[in-house]
């Protein structure tokens, strides 16, 4: 993944994951697989995992442990009310940023 993409994703991955979790509880592996299918092909599993630890700590998701056939129990993440609120803020911020940047791009022409 390009350096620029990595840097930009740092600020947006949280919102992307929360958006994916809306109405769609999932565990880490599913989230990474989905991200890869969306074109974020080189995203590290560990990066997603660290993000999930963080949003759990920040109380944006509820976590349910489900036993798994292999390996440790799987943590299934679902968006809670605080997460929804946070995501709403994220979209507002994103909308502002996207609009400003688009203006900047078209002004120059």
């Amino acid at each position, binding site marked *: 993944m390009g350096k620029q993409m*990595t840097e930009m994703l740092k600020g947006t991955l949280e919102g992307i994951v929360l958006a994916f979790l809306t109405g769609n509880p999932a565990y880490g592996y599913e989230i990474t697989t989905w991200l890869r299918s969306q074109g974020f092909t080189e995203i*590290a*599993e*560990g990066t997603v995992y*660290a993000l999930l630890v*963080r949003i759990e700590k920040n109380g944006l998701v509820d976590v349910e442990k489900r036993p798994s056939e292999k*390996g*440790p129990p*799987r943590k299934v993440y679902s968006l809670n009310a605080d997460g929804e609120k946070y995501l709403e803020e994220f979209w507002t911020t994103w909308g502002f940023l996207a609009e400003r940047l688009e203006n900047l791009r078209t002004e120059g022409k």
Partner: protein
Amino acid sequence: MSIRSMFEAVVGELELKKRWRQLKARKQQLPENHRKAHDAVERYLMYSAGIADGAIVTAMAEDLLELFEQGAADGTPVSAIVGDDPVEFAEEFARNYSEGAWIKKERARLEDAINSITDSDLDKLDHRKDES
């Protein structure tokens, strides 16, 4: 220190020791590549994260092990777990446990120092307003 808090400290220590023993045993169950990668990241974290709190360092080690256990169970290769920049990954991972870092005290001190300067500057501004 009261008897009660002494007792709690001792029990807490024993509990942490137990968790470390379990971690050590679980580590041995990882496939070789995952174990090697896990140990390398763990070593880096122990040096770089500078975590002074025993409970937090244990939680960090448990989370890290779980990541590699899950990866091994899903058949995710090491390169896909840590990505192409393992240091970046480790730093990102460590940030979740920064409340246990010894540097936290210094961060708070820096913030307080800056805040106190700003506050007294504001006082001066208010003062000038009063005079005018």
